[in-house]
């Protein structure tokens, strides 16, 4: 069972029911669950969208798109059925927040999905979980069945004439399916190969119908936004970044875990106070701020860095999925870069040539480089390869592989040079890295 952590600086909104048995529907109701949807049914779709806009809630999957605005893009009239699709394919290395939501608060996902459906005028919602999360899918399936039994889902939800159905779905192992168009392909029973945009999912999505796709954390946040009011939710975070976020802090820290902190919380404080500092009293070398696809930051870059979409963007990286990976001074960055690119090489679907070839050559170059057979020219070649992948693929997987690579090469060029001329890696091999 994943360990829950706590820190006094946390503001528990999304995680407030964690560890309280809220997977049980009666417990969820006792803790204030299914109140938000009743409010929404009484107030109507336009009110819901206005509240969402006022909340400044931005997509927690990584792109940070304002949720209220996303919902408002769906056409009111549509010849084809409209759909809500919840992305629980959580696969970005460094990210395990949705894991806890499905485990501890599955009904918040259901309630948020119904609210999204009401807002856009959809009658069917899908909740897609990655295949590895089988035990969490079973928890979600039980929660959905319980919600049907109570009349919260079905033809006449909460005794109204509104209909809403939820269908759960399992993936079968694919990082790329976390990208929204690939997710729709997978749900349609196909290879998870991305679609070209436009058209955007809000116009032509799942089964060709208008579709809203939200991350599981985003949707679990929705009922809280409604309960506290959009404006009140917005005041918790920083400008244009409403509310809190589940930050997953992993790697070389004393107390790794998922902590719920206000948007804009200082990254240095997050590492040194919330997560207890670098493990074993070692020195901080680098931080990957938002999952493996986000460019690495140096210790001097995080001094005054507030963790919201805009501030991290301004610092040259991205808030991404909120997965903070902390790296100590005993770590070889070339090896870390190699492990990162190996992942993207494994996950590239091969549809777009810059990504398929780029990830493969980056992996080959970095493997050779780390083994001590690199040449000075390789460093610029690695950069050149990565630069030429940027923006040249259907889905962001190519960018996700290129961006961190560029960061490592630019910020740690010296470390790459230290591997030159057949010199062995200046760091202990990986098997000794974790010894404290």
């Amino acid at each position, binding site marked *: 069972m*994943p360990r829950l952590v706590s820190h006094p600086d946390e503001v528990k909104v999304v995680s407030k029911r964690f560890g309280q048995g809220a997977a049980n529907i009666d417990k969820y109701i006792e803790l204030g669950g299914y109140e938000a949807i009743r409010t929404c049914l009484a107030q109507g779709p336009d009110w819901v969208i206005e509240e969402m806009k006022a909340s400044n809630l931005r997509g927690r999957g990584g792109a940070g798109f304002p949720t209220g605005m996303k919902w408002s893009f769906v056409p009111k009239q549509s010849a084809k059925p409209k759909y809500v699709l919840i992305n629980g394919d959580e696969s970005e*290395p460094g990210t395990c927040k949705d894991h806890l939501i499905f485990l501890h608060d599955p009904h918040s996902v259901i309630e948020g999905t119904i609210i999204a459906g009401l807002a856009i005028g959809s009658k069917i919602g899908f909740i897609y979980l990655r295949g590895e999360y089988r035990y969490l899918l079973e928890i979600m399936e039980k929660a959905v069945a319980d919600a049907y039994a109570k009349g919260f889902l079905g033809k006449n939800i909460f005794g109204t004439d509104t209909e809403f159905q939820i269908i759960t779905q399992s993936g079968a192992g694919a990082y790329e399916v976390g990208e929204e168009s690939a997710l729709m392909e997978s749900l349609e029973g196909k290879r998870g190969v991305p679609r070209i945009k436009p058209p955007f999912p809000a116009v032509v999505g799942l*089964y060709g119908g208008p579709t809203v796709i939200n991350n599981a954390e985003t949707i679990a946040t929705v009922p809280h936004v409604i309960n506290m009011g959009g404006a009140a939710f917005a005041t918790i975070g920083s400008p244009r970044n409403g509310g809190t976020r589940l930050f997953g802090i992993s790697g070389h820290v004393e107390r790794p875990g998922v902590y719920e902190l206000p948007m804009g919380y200082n990254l240095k404080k997050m590492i040194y106070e919330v997560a207890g500092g670098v493990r074993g009293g070692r020195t901080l070398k680098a931080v990957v701020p938002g999952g493996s696809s986000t460019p690495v930051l140096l210790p001097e870059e995080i001094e005054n860095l507030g963790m919201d979409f805009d501030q991290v963007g301004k610092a040259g990286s991205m808030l991404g999925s909120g997965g903070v990976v902390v790296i100590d001074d005993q770590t070889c960055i070339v090896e870390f870069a190699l492990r990162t690119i190996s992942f993207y090489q494994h996950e590239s679907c091969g549809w777009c040539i810059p990504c398929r070839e780029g990830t493969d050559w980056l992996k080959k170059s970095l493997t050779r480089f780390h083994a001590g057979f690199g040449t000075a020219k390789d460093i610029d070649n690695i950069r050149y390869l990565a630069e030429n992948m940027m923006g040249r693929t259907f889905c962001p997987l190519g960018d996700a592989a290129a961006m961190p690579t560029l960061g490592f090469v630019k910020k740690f060029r010296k470390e790459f040079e230290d591997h030159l001329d057949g010199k062995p890696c200046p760091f202990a091999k990986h098997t000794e890295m974790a010894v404290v």
Partner: protein
Amino acid sequence: MSAETMSIFSPKVSARFDALVEKYPVRRSALVPMLLYAQDEIGYLSDAVIAEVAHRIGITELDVRNVATYYSMLRFKPAGKYNVQVCTNISCMLRGAYDVFEKFQDELGIGHKGVTPDGVFSLEEVECIGACCWAPAIQVNYDFHDDLTTDSVPGILAQYRQKSEGQNNA
């Protein structure tokens, strides 16, 4: 010839598949989960599995294979009864996942994608399994084991070995 009467799956799984194809607005949406559940029962996607799934969905076997090869959890060869999947991605790597992976290799005497001669265990190095804050983490079939050290490895294997023997004796 209906798939229902000729099914290679148990009555329980067969009934589940009958319901699964009706669950979605489009029948084909059942394909990916059906392949995974089929694998859970049969152990891998054998030719017979592919044929029956194709029949149930109403698409060609080639189409089924085309989809199945995309997903990393789906396999075309048998794995061990307990498939040990060791995550070595960044968060796990930083906390000693390669030590853990090596320990599993030593204990089981097999490498990546290997199966023990008795068929009880197989071993795989896998990508991120979504347990980064409890790293290093592994999955044995669908069960998570987290906050591991090399010292945890023999105990985990003993647990499953015992489970396997218990089932054989039952």
